[in-house]
């Protein structure tokens, strides 16, 4: 792997950009691996990267049915934050922010981290109470989360001009300065390049059709490129968790639901922070580095694998945005997409062993993109050592049997 730097850029510019190396190989699958990861998105590629980097396990394959980062890694809104309610959630998401902020350097790959900060508007005393509870939990783990008065919001967001007739007037806000935006494709590509250079085989267009088991333990995966033997198999798929787990004879406590986002034409910079309106529905907007206004809300309220969503969410969230930013009514919408969330019953991620020995699952839950590096690091720990990382001890499947759920109010869910 050649090192990216100002000198490599200059050298390649002078030679007409004809000599850039491929960022990763495209090898044929070997007959056998120590670990096979199913899913070549941020989580799967990241897990392979950390298996090699932290645990020295390099006889690893990542199998991906489509192209790298073509699932939910390409269908999110690039936001990274840690404003959560529970003591199991906050340190996990904090680790993710920490890793994101140093990964560009570690991977020698620019993830275009943009430290914008996030303001959540407070529009009722109930939301105020939850915000203060969140702030207290977060302060315990060293995460900054502070209240903003209306004049402070106006100062930070000059375009903020809420209608006087709002049904729930904005009373103030709560602010997480470390919330960031990260270039989503770069996360997949950076991890892929880092993993490949450490010897991991990344195999695209390789769809898993079965998981072979013998006396309760996994022995490998059936794919459209033949059987691949494996001592351990990690599942890091987005939106198809139940489908793949079913191949191993397992049922998971998840429902697959679409999470939509839509994007305006690009305009000049008007909005620095990520803004959350009506936090109980999770309506949010931000301006991307390209200048588009990105808008989204909680997930659709029923199961779907369709990668598209219901129009009422778009109408509802856009109306909510226009109450606070009336000038955006002139914007034209350009694109729309839906990612598919594997939404666990309590909204929190599942990083766990299963009843099948050697088969591990990483179900991202509501916030797959924001947790990518933390989930990848802790999932690699679980696969390598067959025991949970300390941060994810309470995020396993056992919580659905012992009743210790990690119920999150701060997830992108209408529940």
């Amino acid at each position, binding site marked *: 792997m050649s090192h990216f730097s100002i000198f490599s850029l200059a050298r390649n510019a002078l030679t007409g950009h004809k000599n850039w190396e491929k960022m990763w190989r495209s090898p044929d699958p070997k007959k056998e691996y120590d670990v096979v990861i199913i899913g070549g998105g941020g989580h799967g590629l990241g897990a392979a990267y950390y298996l090699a980097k932290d645990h020295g396990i390099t006889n690893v394959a990542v199998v991906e049915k489509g192209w790298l980062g073509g699932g939910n890694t390409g269908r999110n809104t690039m936001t990274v934050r840690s404003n959560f309610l529970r003591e199991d959630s906050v340190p996990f998401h904090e680790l993710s922010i920490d890793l994101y902020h140093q990964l560009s350097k570690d991977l020698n790959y620019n993830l275009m981290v943009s430290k914008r900060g996030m303001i959540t508007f407070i529009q009722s005393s109930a939301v105020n109470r939850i915000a203060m509870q969140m702030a207290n939990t977060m302060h315990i783990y060293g995460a900054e989360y502070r209240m903003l008065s209306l004049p402070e919001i106006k100062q930070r967001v000059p375009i903020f001009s809420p209608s006087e007739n709002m049904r729930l007037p904005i009373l103030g806000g709560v602010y997480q300065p470390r919330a960031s935006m990260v270039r989503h494709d770069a996360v997949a590509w950076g991890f892929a390049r880092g993993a490949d250079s450490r010897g991991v085989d990344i195999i695209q267009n390789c769809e898993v059709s079965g998981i072979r088991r013998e006396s309760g333990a996994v022995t490998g995966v059936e794919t459209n490129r033949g059987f691949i033997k494996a001592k351990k198999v990690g599942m890091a798929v987005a939106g*198809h*968790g*139940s*489908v793949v787990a079913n191949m191993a004879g397992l*049922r*998971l*406590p*998840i*429902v*697959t639901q679409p999470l939509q986002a839509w994007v305006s034409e690009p305009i000049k910079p008007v909005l620095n922070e990520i803004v959350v309106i009506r936090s109980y529905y999770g309506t949010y907007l931000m301006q991307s580095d390209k200048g588009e206004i990105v808008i989204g809300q909680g997930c659709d*309220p*029923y*199961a*779907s*694998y*369709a990668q598209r969503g*219901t*129009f*009422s969410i778009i109408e509802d969230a856009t109306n909510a945005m226009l109450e606070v930013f009336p000038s955006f009514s002139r914007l034209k919408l350009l694109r729309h997409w839906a990612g598919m969330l594997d939404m666990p*019953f309590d909204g929190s991620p599942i990083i766990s062993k299963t009843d099948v020995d050697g088969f591990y699952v990483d179900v991202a839950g509501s916030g797959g993109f924001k947790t990518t590096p933390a989930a990848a690091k802790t999932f690699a720990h679980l696969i390598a050592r067959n025991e949970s990382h300390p941060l994810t001890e309470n995020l396993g499947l056992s919580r*659905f*049997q*012992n009743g210790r759920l990690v119920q999150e109010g701060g997830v992108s869910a209408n529940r």
Partner: protein
Amino acid sequence: MLLIPCPWCGQRNEDEFMCGGESARVRPDDPASTTDAQWSDYLYNSTNHKGVVREWWWHVNGCTKWFVIDRDTVTHAIQPASEEIS
């Protein structure tokens, strides 16, 4: 936007309904002899099938009837199913 066939009101906009999840879920008959794993499976796990799923819907902002439809979770095609309770 889905049009949901309510057996009482006919085809109505999905915004009037709430989805009640898979209808195949059956509460264990004898709680005393049910293991934690069986309870957990009943309470939390779902088939989450990719394809046609039989599920409960509730016409909450209409006639308040509960009924069952077959819905394809990939194409969103809907067929009414026969089971219902009032």
